[in-house]
Protein backbone atom coordinates (compact mmCIF):
# COMPACT_ATOMS: atom_id res chain seq x y z
CA UNK A 1 0.00 0.00 0.00
CA UNK A 2 1.25 3.49 -0.84
CA UNK A 3 2.27 5.67 2.07
CA UNK A 4 0.20 8.63 0.91
CA UNK A 5 -3.11 8.32 -0.87
CA UNK A 6 -4.24 10.95 -3.40
CA UNK A 7 -7.75 12.39 -3.27
CA UNK A 8 -8.51 11.44 -6.88
CA UNK A 9 -8.19 7.76 -5.96
CA UNK A 10 -10.82 7.82 -3.22
CA UNK A 11 -12.87 4.68 -3.78
CA UNK A 12 -16.60 5.11 -4.30
CA UNK A 13 -19.41 3.00 -5.68
CA UNK A 14 -21.25 4.19 -8.79
CA UNK A 15 -23.84 6.19 -6.87
CA UNK A 16 -21.35 8.86 -5.90
CA UNK A 17 -20.03 11.66 -8.08
CA UNK A 18 -17.15 13.73 -6.75
CA UNK A 19 -16.35 17.35 -7.36
CA UNK A 20 -13.57 19.54 -6.08
CA UNK A 21 -12.85 23.17 -5.32
CA UNK A 22 -11.77 23.96 -8.88
CA UNK A 23 -15.02 22.59 -10.31
CA UNK A 24 -17.17 24.43 -7.82
CA UNK A 25 -15.43 27.70 -8.53
CA UNK A 26 -16.46 27.40 -12.19
CA UNK A 27 -20.11 27.87 -11.25
CA UNK A 28 -20.85 31.36 -12.49
CA UNK A 29 -24.14 31.40 -10.65
CA UNK A 30 -22.35 31.39 -7.36
CA UNK A 31 -20.45 34.58 -8.11
CA UNK A 32 -23.50 36.39 -9.34
CA UNK A 33 -25.64 35.28 -6.44
CA UNK A 34 -23.14 36.72 -4.00
CA UNK A 35 -23.29 40.12 -5.62
CA UNK A 36 -27.06 40.17 -5.94
CA UNK A 37 -29.12 42.12 -3.46
CA UNK A 38 -31.09 39.65 -1.38
CA UNK A 39 -34.84 39.99 -1.32
CA UNK A 40 -36.76 39.33 1.84
CA UNK A 41 -38.08 36.09 0.46
CA UNK A 42 -34.82 34.76 -0.92
CA UNK A 43 -32.57 32.45 0.96
CA UNK A 44 -29.98 35.18 0.96
CA UNK A 45 -32.05 37.04 3.52
CA UNK A 46 -30.92 34.53 6.08
CA UNK A 47 -28.52 31.68 5.57
CA UNK A 48 -29.39 30.08 8.87
CA UNK A 49 -31.10 26.70 8.61
CA UNK A 50 -34.41 27.20 10.35
CA UNK A 51 -37.80 25.57 9.78
CA UNK A 52 -39.15 28.99 8.71
CA UNK A 53 -37.21 28.89 5.46
CA UNK A 54 -39.40 27.99 2.48
CA UNK A 55 -36.81 25.40 1.42
CA UNK A 56 -36.08 24.17 4.95
CA UNK A 57 -36.60 20.46 4.30
CA UNK A 58 -34.59 20.34 1.10
CA UNK A 59 -31.85 22.50 2.61
CA UNK A 60 -31.67 20.14 5.58
CA UNK A 61 -31.55 17.15 3.24
CA UNK A 62 -28.76 18.65 1.21
CA UNK A 63 -26.84 19.56 4.34
CA UNK A 64 -27.29 16.08 5.80
CA UNK A 65 -25.97 14.52 2.61
CA UNK A 66 -23.01 16.88 2.79
CA UNK A 67 -22.46 15.82 6.38
CA UNK A 68 -22.59 12.16 5.42
CA UNK A 69 -20.02 12.40 2.65
CA UNK A 70 -17.93 14.60 4.92
CA UNK A 71 -17.99 11.89 7.54
CA UNK A 72 -16.95 9.30 4.95
CA UNK A 73 -13.96 11.47 4.10
CA UNK A 74 -13.21 12.09 7.77
CA UNK A 75 -13.21 8.33 8.30
CA UNK A 76 -10.88 7.89 5.35
CA UNK A 77 -8.64 10.74 6.50
CA UNK A 78 -8.34 9.39 10.04
CA UNK A 79 -7.63 5.90 8.70
CA UNK A 80 -4.91 7.22 6.42
CA UNK A 81 -3.28 9.22 9.21
CA UNK A 82 -3.25 6.09 11.37
CA UNK A 83 -1.53 4.30 8.49
CA UNK A 84 0.73 6.84 6.81
CA UNK A 85 3.16 7.70 9.60
CA UNK A 86 5.34 5.32 11.59
CA UNK A 87 5.36 5.56 15.37
CA UNK A 88 8.19 7.70 16.67
CA UNK A 89 9.02 10.93 18.43
CA UNK A 90 7.10 13.17 16.07
CA UNK A 91 10.02 14.39 14.00
CA UNK A 92 10.54 13.70 10.33
CA UNK A 93 7.86 11.35 9.10
CA UNK A 94 6.88 9.93 12.47
CA UNK A 95 4.12 10.58 14.97
CA UNK A 96 3.83 9.54 18.60
CA UNK A 97 2.31 6.09 19.04
CA UNK A 98 -0.55 7.57 21.06
CA UNK A 99 -1.41 9.91 18.19
CA UNK A 100 -1.86 6.89 15.92
CA UNK A 101 -4.14 5.36 18.52
CA UNK A 102 -6.17 8.56 18.65
CA UNK A 103 -6.51 8.53 14.87
CA UNK A 104 -7.74 4.93 14.99
CA UNK A 105 -10.25 5.97 17.62
CA UNK A 106 -11.36 8.83 15.41
CA UNK A 107 -11.79 6.41 12.51
CA UNK A 108 -14.20 4.41 14.64
CA UNK A 109 -16.09 7.55 15.65
CA UNK A 110 -16.37 8.70 12.04
CA UNK A 111 -17.58 5.26 10.94
CA UNK A 112 -20.40 5.61 13.46
CA UNK A 113 -21.15 9.06 12.11
CA UNK A 114 -21.46 7.65 8.61
CA UNK A 115 -23.88 5.05 9.97
CA UNK A 116 -25.90 7.74 11.77
CA UNK A 117 -25.92 10.04 8.73
CA UNK A 118 -27.00 7.21 6.44
CA UNK A 119 -29.92 6.42 8.75
CA UNK A 120 -30.87 10.11 8.95
CA UNK A 121 -30.66 10.46 5.17
CA UNK A 122 -33.11 7.59 4.89
CA UNK A 123 -35.38 9.30 7.44
CA UNK A 124 -35.27 12.54 5.46
CA UNK A 125 -35.89 10.95 2.07
CA UNK A 126 -32.41 11.47 0.63
CA UNK A 127 -30.77 8.87 -1.58
CA UNK A 128 -27.11 8.02 -1.06
CA UNK A 129 -25.15 9.88 -3.70
CA UNK A 130 -28.08 12.15 -4.55
CA UNK A 131 -25.81 15.20 -4.38
CA UNK A 132 -22.32 15.77 -5.68
CA UNK A 133 -19.58 15.05 -3.16
CA UNK A 134 -17.07 17.79 -2.47
CA UNK A 135 -13.74 16.21 -1.59
CA UNK A 136 -12.26 19.21 0.17
CA UNK A 137 -12.24 17.53 3.59
CA UNK A 138 -10.07 14.68 2.41
CA UNK A 139 -7.92 17.18 0.52
CA UNK A 140 -7.22 18.88 3.83
CA UNK A 141 -6.14 15.47 5.16
CA UNK A 142 -3.64 14.83 2.42
CA UNK A 143 -0.72 16.86 3.70
CA UNK A 144 2.58 15.03 4.08
CA UNK A 145 2.92 16.69 7.46
CA UNK A 146 0.59 15.02 9.99
CA UNK A 147 0.46 18.22 12.01
CA UNK A 148 -1.06 20.09 9.08
CA UNK A 149 -3.64 17.34 8.80
CA UNK A 150 -4.58 17.86 12.44
CA UNK A 151 -4.73 21.62 11.99
CA UNK A 152 -6.82 21.47 8.85
CA UNK A 153 -9.11 18.59 9.72
CA UNK A 154 -9.35 18.26 13.49
CA UNK A 155 -9.16 21.91 14.43
CA UNK A 156 -10.68 23.72 11.45
CA UNK A 157 -13.07 21.28 9.78
CA UNK A 158 -14.15 19.43 12.89
CA UNK A 159 -14.63 22.82 14.47
CA UNK A 160 -16.86 23.67 11.52
CA UNK A 161 -18.67 20.39 12.08
CA UNK A 162 -19.44 21.55 15.62
CA UNK A 163 -21.08 24.67 14.19
CA UNK A 164 -23.02 22.71 11.58
CA UNK A 165 -24.18 20.00 13.95
CA UNK A 166 -25.28 22.62 16.47
CA UNK A 167 -27.39 24.24 13.80
CA UNK A 168 -28.84 20.90 12.67
CA UNK A 169 -29.56 20.01 16.29
CA UNK A 170 -31.41 23.29 16.80
CA UNK A 171 -33.27 22.75 13.55
CA UNK A 172 -34.37 19.31 14.67
CA UNK A 173 -35.35 20.61 18.07
CA UNK A 174 -37.49 23.46 16.70
CA UNK A 175 -39.09 21.18 14.12
CA UNK A 176 -39.85 18.55 16.74
CA UNK A 177 -37.93 15.88 14.84
CA UNK A 178 -37.42 13.03 17.34
CA UNK A 179 -34.28 11.68 15.68
CA UNK A 180 -32.40 14.63 14.27
CA UNK A 181 -31.68 16.43 17.54
CA UNK A 182 -30.81 13.14 19.30
CA UNK A 183 -28.37 12.06 16.61
CA UNK A 184 -26.74 15.45 16.12
CA UNK A 185 -26.10 15.75 19.85
CA UNK A 186 -24.30 12.41 19.96
CA UNK A 187 -22.19 13.36 16.97
CA UNK A 188 -21.47 16.74 18.55
CA UNK A 189 -20.01 15.06 21.60
CA UNK A 190 -17.62 13.11 19.40
CA UNK A 191 -16.59 16.13 17.38
CA UNK A 192 -15.63 18.02 20.52
CA UNK A 193 -13.34 15.08 21.32
CA UNK A 194 -11.78 15.23 17.87
CA UNK A 195 -11.12 18.94 18.03
CA UNK A 196 -9.55 18.48 21.45
CA UNK A 197 -7.42 15.64 20.11
CA UNK A 198 -6.21 17.90 17.33
CA UNK A 199 -5.53 20.79 19.72
CA UNK A 200 -3.65 18.61 22.20
CA UNK A 201 -1.50 16.89 19.60
CA UNK A 202 -0.75 20.07 17.73
CA UNK A 203 0.52 21.60 20.97
CA UNK A 204 2.48 18.51 22.02
CA UNK A 205 4.12 17.66 18.73
CA UNK A 206 5.15 21.22 17.88
CA UNK A 207 6.15 22.23 21.41
CA UNK A 208 9.74 22.72 20.31
CA UNK A 209 9.03 23.80 16.76
CA UNK A 210 7.41 27.24 16.69
CA UNK A 211 7.69 27.48 12.92
CA UNK A 212 5.82 24.25 12.41
CA UNK A 213 3.20 25.36 14.87
CA UNK A 214 2.77 28.69 13.10
CA UNK A 215 2.32 26.89 9.81
CA UNK A 216 -0.23 24.50 11.30
CA UNK A 217 -2.30 27.31 12.73
CA UNK A 218 -2.15 29.18 9.45
CA UNK A 219 -3.46 26.08 7.69
CA UNK A 220 -6.25 25.91 10.20
CA UNK A 221 -7.24 29.50 9.50
CA UNK A 222 -7.23 28.88 5.79
CA UNK A 223 -9.50 25.87 6.13
CA UNK A 224 -11.69 27.77 8.54
CA UNK A 225 -12.27 30.65 6.16
CA UNK A 226 -12.66 28.22 3.28
CA UNK A 227 -15.99 27.28 4.74
CA UNK A 228 -17.13 30.77 5.69
CA UNK A 229 -19.92 30.72 3.12
CA UNK A 230 -20.57 34.29 2.10
CA UNK A 231 -18.53 35.43 5.05
CA UNK A 232 -21.57 34.63 7.12
CA UNK A 233 -19.77 32.55 9.72
CA UNK A 234 -19.38 34.58 12.81
CA UNK A 235 -20.94 34.97 16.17
CA UNK A 236 -24.05 36.92 15.36
CA UNK A 237 -27.36 35.14 15.56
CA UNK A 238 -27.91 35.80 11.87
CA UNK A 239 -24.75 34.06 10.66
CA UNK A 240 -25.03 30.76 8.83
CA UNK A 241 -22.95 28.75 11.24
CA UNK A 242 -22.76 30.36 14.59
CA UNK A 243 -19.46 29.63 16.24
CA UNK A 244 -20.81 27.61 19.20
CA UNK A 245 -18.20 29.25 21.37
CA UNK A 246 -18.82 27.09 24.33
CA UNK A 247 -18.08 23.93 22.38
CA UNK A 248 -14.81 25.36 21.10
CA UNK A 249 -13.74 26.19 24.64
CA UNK A 250 -14.53 22.63 25.68
CA UNK A 251 -12.57 21.34 22.72
CA UNK A 252 -9.32 22.80 23.98
CA UNK A 253 -9.29 26.24 22.41
CA UNK A 254 -8.07 28.93 24.81
CA UNK A 255 -10.06 32.12 25.20
CA UNK A 256 -7.70 33.86 22.82
CA UNK A 257 -7.92 31.05 20.32
CA UNK A 258 -11.70 31.16 20.28
CA UNK A 259 -11.54 34.75 19.14
CA UNK A 260 -8.16 34.87 17.41
CA UNK A 261 -6.39 31.67 16.75
CA UNK A 262 -3.02 31.90 18.49
CA UNK A 263 -0.12 29.75 18.93
CA UNK A 264 -0.37 27.23 21.68
CA UNK A 265 1.75 25.46 24.16
CA UNK A 266 4.68 23.26 25.04
CA UNK A 267 4.31 20.32 22.74
CA UNK A 268 3.97 22.48 19.69
CA UNK A 269 7.13 24.40 20.61
CA UNK A 270 9.12 21.29 21.50
CA UNK A 271 8.70 19.28 18.35
CA UNK A 272 9.19 22.18 15.96
CA UNK A 273 11.98 23.90 17.92
CA UNK A 274 14.58 22.96 15.32
CA UNK A 275 12.40 23.28 12.24
CA UNK A 276 11.20 26.88 11.93
CA UNK A 277 10.53 26.56 8.23
CA UNK A 278 8.17 23.66 8.79
CA UNK A 279 6.13 25.63 11.28
CA UNK A 280 5.95 28.66 9.04
CA UNK A 281 4.81 26.52 6.14
CA UNK A 282 2.05 24.88 8.20
CA UNK A 283 0.70 28.18 9.37
CA UNK A 284 0.75 29.61 5.88
CA UNK A 285 -1.11 26.55 4.58
CA UNK A 286 -3.78 27.01 7.20
CA UNK A 287 -4.31 30.63 6.27
CA UNK A 288 -4.46 29.82 2.59
CA UNK A 289 -7.09 27.14 3.04
CA UNK A 290 -8.93 29.35 5.45
CA UNK A 291 -9.17 32.28 3.06
CA UNK A 292 -9.79 30.20 -0.02
CA UNK A 293 -13.39 29.49 0.95
CA UNK A 294 -14.31 33.02 1.94
CA UNK A 295 -17.18 33.10 -0.54
CA UNK A 296 -18.19 36.69 -0.93
CA UNK A 297 -14.71 37.80 -0.08
CA UNK A 298 -12.15 39.18 -2.45
CA UNK A 299 -12.42 37.51 -5.82
CA UNK A 300 -9.72 38.71 -8.13
CA UNK A 301 -6.05 38.30 -8.54
CA UNK A 302 -4.68 39.97 -5.44
CA UNK A 303 -2.61 38.01 -2.94
CA UNK A 304 -5.81 37.31 -1.02
CA UNK A 305 -7.87 36.37 -4.07
CA UNK A 306 -9.36 32.92 -4.40
CA UNK A 307 -7.04 31.91 -7.18
CA UNK A 308 -3.87 33.11 -5.53
CA UNK A 309 -4.97 31.31 -2.41
CA UNK A 310 -5.82 28.17 -4.37
CA UNK A 311 -2.38 28.27 -5.93
CA UNK A 312 -0.66 28.56 -2.58
CA UNK A 313 -2.91 25.78 -1.21
CA UNK A 314 -1.65 23.43 -3.87
CA UNK A 315 1.96 24.39 -3.29
CA UNK A 316 1.70 23.65 0.41
CA UNK A 317 -0.48 20.56 -0.03
CA UNK A 318 2.21 18.81 -2.04
CA UNK A 319 1.19 19.33 -5.64
CA UNK A 320 4.17 19.44 -8.02
CA UNK A 321 5.27 22.78 -9.47
CA UNK A 322 3.91 21.78 -12.87
CA UNK A 323 0.54 20.82 -11.45
CA UNK A 324 0.31 24.07 -9.51
CA UNK A 325 1.09 26.18 -12.55
CA UNK A 326 -1.20 24.25 -14.89
CA UNK A 327 -4.18 24.42 -12.57
CA UNK A 328 -3.51 28.07 -11.75
CA UNK A 329 -3.57 28.93 -15.44
CA UNK A 330 -6.81 27.03 -15.89
CA UNK A 331 -8.33 28.80 -12.90
CA UNK A 332 -7.31 32.22 -14.17
CA UNK A 333 -8.70 31.49 -17.65
CA UNK A 334 -11.94 30.19 -16.17
CA UNK A 335 -12.31 33.32 -14.08
CA UNK A 336 -11.81 35.56 -17.10
CA UNK A 337 -14.32 33.55 -19.12
CA UNK A 338 -16.87 33.81 -16.36
CA UNK A 339 -16.38 37.55 -15.95
CA UNK A 340 -16.84 38.01 -19.67
CA UNK A 341 -19.97 35.85 -19.69
CA UNK A 342 -21.48 37.86 -16.84
CA UNK A 343 -20.74 41.12 -18.65
CA UNK A 344 -22.38 39.89 -21.84
CA UNK A 345 -25.39 38.47 -19.99
CA UNK A 346 -26.01 41.73 -18.21
CA UNK A 347 -25.71 43.71 -21.39
CA UNK A 348 -28.28 41.43 -22.99
CA UNK A 349 -30.92 41.44 -20.27
CA UNK A 350 -30.33 44.94 -19.02
CA UNK A 351 -29.32 46.43 -15.71
CA UNK A 352 -32.26 44.81 -13.85
CA UNK A 353 -30.87 41.25 -14.22
Amino acid at each position, binding site marked *: *MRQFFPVEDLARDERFVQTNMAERMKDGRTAIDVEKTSSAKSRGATKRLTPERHDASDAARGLMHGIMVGEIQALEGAGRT*AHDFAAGDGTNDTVPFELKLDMARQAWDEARHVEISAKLSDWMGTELGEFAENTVLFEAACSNDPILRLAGVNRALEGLAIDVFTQMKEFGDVAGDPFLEFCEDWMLADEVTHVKMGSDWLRKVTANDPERRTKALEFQQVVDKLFSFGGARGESADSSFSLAKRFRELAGFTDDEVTHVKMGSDWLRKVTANDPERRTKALEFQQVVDKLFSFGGARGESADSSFSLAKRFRELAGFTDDEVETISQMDAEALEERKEAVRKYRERVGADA
Partner: protein
Amino acid sequence: MGNGAVDAHESTARAPFAPWDRRDIPGSFSVDETARRVGNYKWTEMKLFEALGGWVATVPELDVKMRLGTHCYHHAWHADLWHKRLPELREMKPERLTVPANEAMERFIAAMTEPEAPELTIEKLVGVYRVLIPRFIAAYTYHRNNTSEITDAPTIRSINFILQDEFDDWRDGEMLLQSMITTPDHVRRAAEHQERLEAIMVEAGGITGPDSIGTAETTSTEGGA
Protein backbone atom coordinates in the same frame (compact mmCIF):
# COMPACT_ATOMS: atom_id res chain seq x y z
CA MET B 1 -25.80 -15.78 72.08
CA GLY B 2 -29.18 -14.97 70.62
CA ASN B 3 -29.03 -11.27 69.86
CA GLY B 4 -26.93 -11.39 66.62
CA ALA B 5 -23.72 -10.11 68.19
CA VAL B 6 -20.50 -11.49 66.74
CA ASP B 7 -18.67 -14.13 68.72
CA ALA B 8 -15.27 -12.55 69.37
CA HIS B 9 -13.69 -15.97 69.41
CA GLU B 10 -15.05 -17.03 65.92
CA SER B 11 -12.09 -17.71 63.62
CA THR B 12 -11.69 -15.66 60.41
CA ALA B 13 -8.94 -17.81 59.07
CA ARG B 14 -9.84 -19.12 55.61
CA ALA B 15 -7.87 -20.90 52.95
CA PRO B 16 -6.30 -18.39 50.52
CA PHE B 17 -8.16 -20.04 47.65
CA ALA B 18 -11.88 -20.71 47.88
CA PRO B 19 -12.85 -24.29 47.11
CA TRP B 20 -14.11 -23.29 43.69
CA ASP B 21 -10.97 -21.33 42.81
CA ARG B 22 -8.80 -23.90 41.01
CA ARG B 23 -6.26 -21.43 39.57
CA ASP B 24 -2.70 -22.58 39.94
CA ILE B 25 0.80 -21.16 39.63
CA PRO B 26 2.52 -23.13 36.88
CA GLY B 27 2.73 -21.50 33.51
CA SER B 28 4.66 -22.13 30.35
CA PHE B 29 6.15 -18.68 30.00
CA SER B 30 8.72 -16.77 31.97
CA VAL B 31 8.52 -12.99 32.31
CA ASP B 32 10.98 -12.53 29.44
CA GLU B 33 9.20 -14.98 27.19
CA THR B 34 5.88 -13.35 27.92
CA ALA B 35 7.35 -9.94 27.08
CA ARG B 36 8.71 -11.29 23.81
CA ARG B 37 5.31 -12.65 22.81
CA VAL B 38 3.52 -9.50 23.91
CA GLY B 39 5.94 -7.45 21.80
CA ASN B 40 5.11 -9.63 18.79
CA TYR B 41 1.40 -9.24 19.48
CA LYS B 42 1.77 -5.49 19.71
CA TRP B 43 3.76 -5.25 16.48
CA THR B 44 1.24 -7.36 14.58
CA GLU B 45 -1.80 -5.58 16.00
CA MET B 46 -0.19 -2.27 14.98
CA LYS B 47 0.40 -3.50 11.45
CA LEU B 48 -3.17 -4.72 11.29
CA PHE B 49 -4.75 -1.48 12.47
CA GLU B 50 -2.55 0.53 10.13
CA ALA B 51 -3.60 -1.67 7.23
CA LEU B 52 -7.30 -1.45 8.07
CA GLY B 53 -7.08 2.33 8.46
CA GLY B 54 -5.20 2.71 5.20
CA TRP B 55 -7.64 0.50 3.30
CA VAL B 56 -10.72 2.50 4.29
CA ALA B 57 -10.12 5.01 1.49
CA THR B 58 -9.44 2.26 -1.05
CA VAL B 59 -12.62 0.17 -0.81
CA PRO B 60 -15.73 1.41 -2.64
CA GLU B 61 -18.20 -0.77 -0.72
CA LEU B 62 -19.81 1.44 1.92
CA ASP B 63 -20.50 -1.28 4.49
CA VAL B 64 -16.96 -2.65 4.21
CA LYS B 65 -15.55 0.86 4.49
CA MET B 66 -17.34 1.46 7.77
CA ARG B 67 -16.48 -1.94 9.23
CA LEU B 68 -12.79 -1.44 8.48
CA GLY B 69 -12.90 1.87 10.37
CA THR B 70 -14.47 0.20 13.38
CA HIS B 71 -12.08 -2.75 13.34
CA CYS B 72 -9.12 -0.38 12.92
CA TYR B 73 -9.89 0.97 16.35
CA HIS B 74 -10.31 -2.50 17.88
CA HIS B 75 -6.80 -3.53 16.88
CA ALA B 76 -5.32 -0.17 17.83
CA TRP B 77 -6.79 -0.66 21.30
CA HIS B 78 -5.23 -4.15 21.43
CA ALA B 79 -1.88 -2.64 20.50
CA ASP B 80 -2.34 -0.11 23.29
CA LEU B 81 -3.11 -2.83 25.84
CA TRP B 82 0.14 -4.56 24.88
CA HIS B 83 2.03 -1.28 24.84
CA LYS B 84 1.00 -0.77 28.47
CA ARG B 85 1.74 -4.36 29.43
CA LEU B 86 5.35 -4.34 28.28
CA PRO B 87 6.76 -2.04 31.00
CA GLU B 88 4.98 -4.26 33.52
CA LEU B 89 7.09 -7.12 32.14
CA ARG B 90 10.28 -5.21 32.84
CA GLU B 91 10.53 -3.77 29.32
CA MET B 92 10.87 -0.04 29.92
CA LYS B 93 11.40 0.70 26.22
CA PRO B 94 8.39 -0.98 24.61
CA GLU B 95 9.64 -0.15 21.11
CA ARG B 96 12.58 -2.49 21.67
CA LEU B 97 10.30 -5.51 21.76
CA THR B 98 7.71 -4.17 19.33
CA VAL B 99 9.10 -6.27 16.51
CA PRO B 100 7.93 -9.02 14.19
CA ALA B 101 8.59 -12.59 15.31
CA ASN B 102 10.85 -13.10 12.32
CA GLU B 103 11.53 -11.96 8.76
CA ALA B 104 8.76 -14.15 7.39
CA MET B 105 6.16 -12.28 9.48
CA GLU B 106 7.38 -9.03 7.92
CA ARG B 107 6.96 -10.57 4.50
CA PHE B 108 3.52 -11.79 5.48
CA ILE B 109 2.39 -8.30 6.42
CA ALA B 110 3.85 -6.87 3.23
CA ALA B 111 1.99 -9.48 1.17
CA MET B 112 -1.22 -9.00 3.12
CA THR B 113 -1.17 -5.22 2.62
CA GLU B 114 -0.09 -5.34 -1.00
CA PRO B 115 -3.62 -5.24 -2.56
CA GLU B 116 -4.66 -1.61 -2.90
CA ALA B 117 -6.81 -1.22 -6.04
CA PRO B 118 -10.54 -0.62 -5.46
CA GLU B 119 -11.52 -3.89 -7.16
CA LEU B 120 -9.48 -5.99 -4.72
CA THR B 121 -11.74 -5.84 -1.66
CA ILE B 122 -12.03 -9.63 -1.58
CA GLU B 123 -8.25 -10.02 -1.35
CA LYS B 124 -7.99 -7.40 1.39
CA LEU B 125 -10.64 -9.10 3.50
CA VAL B 126 -9.29 -12.61 2.91
CA GLY B 127 -5.85 -11.63 4.17
CA VAL B 128 -7.24 -10.28 7.41
CA TYR B 129 -10.27 -12.41 8.18
CA ARG B 130 -9.27 -15.80 6.76
CA VAL B 131 -5.57 -15.76 7.58
CA LEU B 132 -4.35 -13.21 10.14
CA ILE B 133 -7.25 -13.01 12.57
CA PRO B 134 -7.64 -16.80 12.81
CA ARG B 135 -3.92 -16.86 13.64
CA PHE B 136 -4.47 -14.24 16.32
CA ILE B 137 -7.30 -16.28 17.80
CA ALA B 138 -5.06 -19.33 17.85
CA ALA B 139 -2.04 -17.58 19.36
CA TYR B 140 -4.04 -15.75 22.00
CA THR B 141 -5.96 -18.90 22.96
CA TYR B 142 -2.75 -20.88 23.31
CA HIS B 143 -1.17 -18.14 25.41
CA ARG B 144 -4.19 -17.76 27.66
CA ASN B 145 -4.43 -21.50 28.25
CA ASN B 146 -0.74 -21.97 28.94
CA THR B 147 0.32 -18.99 31.00
CA SER B 148 0.13 -18.84 34.77
CA GLU B 149 -3.34 -17.94 35.86
CA ILE B 150 -1.99 -16.31 38.98
CA THR B 151 1.32 -14.64 38.08
CA ASP B 152 0.25 -13.59 34.59
CA ALA B 153 -3.35 -12.63 35.34
CA PRO B 154 -3.03 -9.17 33.70
CA THR B 155 -2.06 -10.76 30.36
CA ILE B 156 -4.96 -13.19 30.62
CA ARG B 157 -7.36 -10.35 31.32
CA SER B 158 -6.19 -8.45 28.24
CA ILE B 159 -6.32 -11.58 26.10
CA ASN B 160 -9.90 -12.25 27.18
CA PHE B 161 -11.00 -8.77 26.13
CA ILE B 162 -9.01 -8.98 22.92
CA LEU B 163 -10.33 -12.42 22.02
CA GLN B 164 -13.90 -11.12 22.26
CA ASP B 165 -13.02 -8.51 19.63
CA GLU B 166 -11.16 -11.03 17.49
CA PHE B 167 -14.13 -13.39 17.36
CA ASP B 168 -16.59 -10.56 16.66
CA ASP B 169 -14.35 -9.05 13.98
CA TRP B 170 -13.70 -12.44 12.40
CA ARG B 171 -17.45 -13.00 12.16
CA ASP B 172 -18.03 -9.53 10.63
CA GLY B 173 -15.29 -10.08 8.09
CA GLU B 174 -16.32 -13.60 7.22
CA MET B 175 -19.92 -12.51 6.64
CA LEU B 176 -18.78 -9.65 4.43
CA LEU B 177 -16.67 -12.11 2.46
CA GLN B 178 -19.51 -14.57 2.07
CA SER B 179 -21.73 -11.77 0.78
CA MET B 180 -19.07 -10.69 -1.74
CA ILE B 181 -17.89 -14.08 -3.00
CA THR B 182 -20.70 -14.89 -5.38
CA THR B 183 -19.05 -16.30 -8.52
CA PRO B 184 -16.50 -19.03 -9.32
CA ASP B 185 -14.00 -16.29 -10.16
CA HIS B 186 -14.46 -14.75 -6.72
CA VAL B 187 -13.91 -18.15 -5.15
CA ARG B 188 -10.74 -18.63 -7.14
CA ARG B 189 -9.40 -15.21 -6.21
CA ALA B 190 -10.10 -15.73 -2.54
CA ALA B 191 -8.58 -19.19 -2.48
CA GLU B 192 -5.44 -18.17 -4.38
CA HIS B 193 -4.77 -15.17 -2.19
CA GLN B 194 -5.37 -17.19 0.97
CA GLU B 195 -3.00 -19.88 -0.28
CA ARG B 196 -0.28 -17.31 -1.00
CA LEU B 197 -0.55 -15.82 2.46
CA GLU B 198 -0.87 -19.11 4.31
CA ALA B 199 2.36 -20.31 2.75
CA ILE B 200 4.22 -17.31 4.16
CA MET B 201 2.53 -17.64 7.54
CA VAL B 202 3.59 -21.28 7.70
CA GLU B 203 7.16 -20.13 7.09
CA ALA B 204 6.80 -17.65 9.92
CA GLY B 205 5.29 -20.28 12.20
CA GLY B 206 2.65 -17.90 13.45
CA ILE B 207 2.40 -14.50 15.05
CA THR B 208 5.05 -15.24 17.66
CA GLY B 209 7.09 -17.60 15.51
CA PRO B 210 7.32 -21.39 15.42
CA ASP B 211 5.87 -21.91 18.89
CA SER B 212 2.88 -19.60 18.49
CA ILE B 213 0.47 -22.38 19.43
CA GLY B 214 2.91 -24.80 20.99
CA THR B 215 4.27 -28.03 19.58
CA ALA B 216 3.87 -31.72 20.37
CA GLU B 217 6.81 -31.34 22.75
CA THR B 218 5.38 -28.39 24.63
CA THR B 219 3.95 -29.33 28.05
CA SER B 220 3.14 -27.24 31.07
CA THR B 221 4.78 -28.02 34.36
CA GLU B 222 3.12 -30.99 36.02
CA GLY B 223 2.00 -30.76 39.62
CA GLY B 224 1.56 -27.78 41.89
CA ALA B 225 4.12 -25.16 42.72
